[in-house]
Structure formats: structure tokens, C-alpha cells
């Protein structure tokens, strides 16, 4: 029973989309559009300001006051971790896993390669989020909600390169999504 639960999507697409959309609307009504990537930069700025204060003073980003704020965004990310952990435990889907079904179907290599790919992907994602002035949550979801011009070029390259990368890394389709390791 738990095996099947762990592969279950609790909500159908329309309910999931509606829920996420309403969360975004609530965020815009209360504070502003949701964003996840900036607190990562804030954290690094905090560390570098402590480790290398002289270098930080001359650096245009490290000396920028808006990156020294450990306020709403940082706590928002903490909240994501707490909320997801709570939901996963409540739904009984919390489980240690390393490999996905698509990875297993396409790569015989051990889990270590998946972790290396994850690390490299993480570097690219945050570097890209910095250059794009926002990640998928801030620039794509937030951008389209506000009808901002920047959402259009972002969407085009995000999905264009995303599909290309997925096609190169995962050319074979799994017959069915087995439970991850």
C-alpha cells in the first residue's frame, strides 16, 4: 500500500494548478510575487561579508544592501522545506531516494553520477536565476502573473533548452515509472 502511495500524485492537475495559482494570488495580495532563488545569493553574500569584508566592500553586489536582508524571502524558503516535509510525512511519501525512473532507464551508471549531475544542474540553475533576475518561481510564474515583458524571453529559452537537455540526457522513455531507489 505504501509502495503505491509513494508514486501517487495526491491532486489531479486542475486542483493542483488551482491551489498553486491561489497561493500565488495570496502572496501577491499580502507581500508580492513568490521567489526562491534570491535567498541563496543572500546566504552567500552573508558568508562572504563575514569571511572577506575588505573584498566585499569593493564588490558591487556584496556591498548592495538589498542582498544583506535576511527577511521574508529567506523565511519563505525555510517554510517551503517545512511545508514539503510535513506534507510528505502526512501523505506517507517521505522516503530516502537517489535515482529517478528516467535516470535508471537511461543510465546504468551508479547513483554517484546522478548526484554529480544534480550538483552541476544546481550550479547552472542558480547561476541562470541570477542572470535572469529570477528563477522559475519568480521569473516564470511571477512574470506571467504580472504580465511582465521579461517572462516571454525567459519562457522561450527555459523550455527550449530544457527540452533539448532532457532529450539529450534522457533519450529513452521508461515503460512505467517504477519506484525510485
Amino acid at each position, binding site marked *: 500500500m505504501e509502495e*503505491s502511495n509513494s508514486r501517487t*500524485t*495526491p*491532486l*489531479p*492537475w*486542475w486542483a*493542483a*494548478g488551482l*491551489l*498553486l*495559482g491561489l*497561493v500565488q494570488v495570496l502572496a501577491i495580495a499580502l*507581500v508580492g510575487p*513568490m521567489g526562491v532563488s534570491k535567498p541563496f545569493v543572500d546566504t*552567500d*553574500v552573508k558568508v562572504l561579508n563575514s569571511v572577506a569584508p575588505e573584498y566585499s566592500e569593493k*564588490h*558591487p553586489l556584496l556591498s548592495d544592501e538589498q542582498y544583506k536582508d535576511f527577511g*521574508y524571502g529567506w*523565511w*519563505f524558503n*525555510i517554510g517551503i522545506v517545512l511545508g*514539503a516535509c*510535513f506534507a510528505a510525512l502526512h501523505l506517507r*511519501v517521505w522516503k*530516502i*531516494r*537517489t535515482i*529517478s525512473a*528516467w535516470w535508471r532507464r537511461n543510465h546504468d551508471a551508479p*547513483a554517484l553520477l546522478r548526484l554529480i*549531475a544534480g*550538483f552541476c*544542474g*544546481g550550479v*547552472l*540553475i*542558480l547561476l*541562470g*536565476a541570477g542572470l*535572469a533576475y529570477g*528563477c*522559475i518561481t*519568480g521569473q516564470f510564474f*511571477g512574470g*506571467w502573473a504580472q*504580465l511582465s*515583458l*521579461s517572462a516571454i524571453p*525567459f519562457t522561450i529559452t*527555459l523550455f527550449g*533548452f530544457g*527540452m533539448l*537537455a*532532457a532529450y539529450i540526457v*534522457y533519450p529513452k*522513455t*521508461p515503460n512505467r*515509472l517504477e519506484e525510485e531507489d
Partner: protein
Amino acid sequence: MASPVVGIIMGVIFGASLVLAGLTNPDRIIGALRLKDFHAIRTVVFFVLVAMLGTWILGLFGAANLSIKPAVVLSVMIGGALIGIGLGLTGFSPATSLASAASGRIDALITVVGMIFGAHVYILIYPSVVVRLEKIFNFGNVTLPELTGVSAGIWVLSIFVAGSLVLLITWSMQPRFGEADLGVKGAFPASTDSQTVAGGMGLLLRSDYIKAAYVFRRWKNLLFLVMLLCLLLNQASFWLVITGQVEISGNTNFDAPVVAGADNTRAGQTTPEEGSGSFMLFGYNVTFGLLSSIMRVTSIILILASAFYALIMSFGMSVSFKGGLGGLNHICGALYMALIIFVLLMPWQAFFGPLVLGATYTTQELIRWSTTDISDNFTMVLFYLRFSGYLALILLLLILTQLRSLRWVRAIKAVSREDDRNPNP
């Protein structure tokens, strides 16, 4: 209001929603990028549509706290490409990697570590790369309504229609592995139905599918007739004006583009006056005001009807596929042509200026062209192509679509007859 407590509460709700939506599963994301699993695509599209509509409504009441990102096009495109590659490689976005790591995924946790390192790389290259990129193609913190001058309502409506079409197209497409394998609770009961039908064991069920297809056929034919009538009315109005039967009258501000039927008529724009240069038809006084209203209304109906026409084709394709009724190639062809008709009918000139023309036009556009000197052959050809030839092309496409869909109906009728002949296979 942006206190840590609000941050934590919003984060908890968002994180839990991501898990509930199934977006923390990297297989869902990779499946979506490979166009093999449409759950994530549908969820994301619906997410965007609901958020956009909600934000627009909040904006009407002045309750939206907006934060527009700068449109530094080159930088945003490079950033989007890098995130895309990362997403395609890992199946995680920053938000889902955090939520997924909290659900026990080690690979997501390593991705989060990679993101912290990525932030470090961003800080290092900031003075040398980012500062320079900021100066290239920087349009500032601008929104689409501000850039185009078209009201936010029109943008919301257009994106909503486009998003709804994506939802319908993905809805009608069965994933390569059934959603039952993907674990969507209660989804796709039809997958077992279609297997039953394909196995020739569910004639009653197939009869139901055939009846459903006939319902769609009736709606399809009705919409075809509506569109045909609108096209003819629109062209009749155009030719009455252009042949001088009804004289153009009234003042119009030509500088601001106005979408037909939009509620953004501005100061200085007046509807043409009625009463001058009219002619009698069956005892009824036909004025330019009446004709401009007909053109406006028919344009709106044409766009809406073409969207529903494509929608019906999509439903027909879905029923045909799930019921094993045949004629899929014909209904697919008809669907694509219906989508082309919809795209061509949209008033793109209102969004992108005169370089991208949609088939529907406004009265203002017609008056502007009519009052311009079109004595040289080239301009005259352009004029008639714009206002008559374009809609003739739409008419041609519409007839071809209808003929193609008729072949689909014939295929279903053949299946129906076959079932009647062999009630016990």
C-alpha cells in the same frame, strides 16, 4: 506585512502545495520536458492562468503588490537557457529541489548544495559579466500592457485562450505510459475502457463513444455555419462601404489601435455617426454606424467561434482515440487547420502593430485605409488583400477543415455500421 512569520506561513503553504501537486517528483518534470507526461504541463499552465487572472482581479481593486522584473532581454535569455539545462538535467527547479529534498530525495539535496555554489559563481562573475549584460537590450521594468498600449484585460483574455488550448490539446493526448502507472489517483479510468474497446469487448461502450462523436459533429457543424454567416456578413458590410453604398462618417482617432469589442475605447475616439450616407434595405435604413457594429460583432464572434471550433475538434479527436472509432488522421488534420484559423483570425495588429496582421479588423482600420490614397495598383491590391483576400483565405481554410472533418464522420459511420452488422464479435 512582509514579516518572517508571513514568509514562513506562505512558504509552508507553497511547499505543501508542491508536494500535493506532484511537482517534487523529478520524473514528472523530465516526462513533461520529453512530452511524455502531461500532468506537470497541465498543472503549470493552470497555475499560470489562475495566478494571472487572480492578479489581474487584484489589480482592478488596487490590491496587487507587484514586483516587475527588469526585461534585460539578453541576460534573461541566457539565464533562462542555463536554468533550462539545469532543469532538463536534474528535473528540479529551485523551489521543487527544496521541497523534494525535504521529502527525502538525496539528489535534490545535492542540487540545493549545487545551487548554493551556483550563487557563489554568480557573485564572482557579477562585476565582470552581469554588470555588462545589464546594459544590453534593457527595456526596464515594463509589462506587456505598458509596452503595447493594449489593456491588461485583453492580454489576460488572449493568454487565457492560448493556455486553455494547451490544456485541451494535452488533455486529448494519452501519455505513452498510462497515468495509472504514474500514480494519478482516480485519473484516466478511460485507459481501461479503451483497452476494452480495442479488444472488441465493449460494444455498448463504443456505442456511447459514437453517440458522443455525433454530439460533437452537431456542434462542429453549427459553429461552421455561425462562422460562415459571420464571414459573409462581415464581407457584405465591407463591400457596402467600399462601393460607396454607405458613406463613411464620424471622427476617429487613428493613432491608438483598438481591438474589436474591447472596452478600452479612449477619449477622442468616437463611434461613427449614424444617419448620413445610408441606404434602404428591405425598408430598413442601413447606416455606417450599423455596419461598423456588424463588423465589430462578427469579428468577436468569429474569434470565439473559431476557438470553440478547434475545441470541438480536439474533443472529437479524444473521443475517436479513446473509443477506437478511426478517422484519427482526418480529425487531427481538421484540428490543426482549425487552430490555424483561430491564430489567423486573432487581431495581432492590436498587439504587435501593423507588421503582424490578423484577419479580423476594426472599423478604425478600415476608415484609415479607405481615406488613404490607394490609386496606385500595389496599394490597391494590398487593400483588397487585407480586407477581403485575408478573410477569403479564412473561408477557404474553413471549408477545407469542414471537408476534412466530414471524412472523420464518415469513418465513424463506417465503424457504427460494422458494429451493427456484428453485434457479437
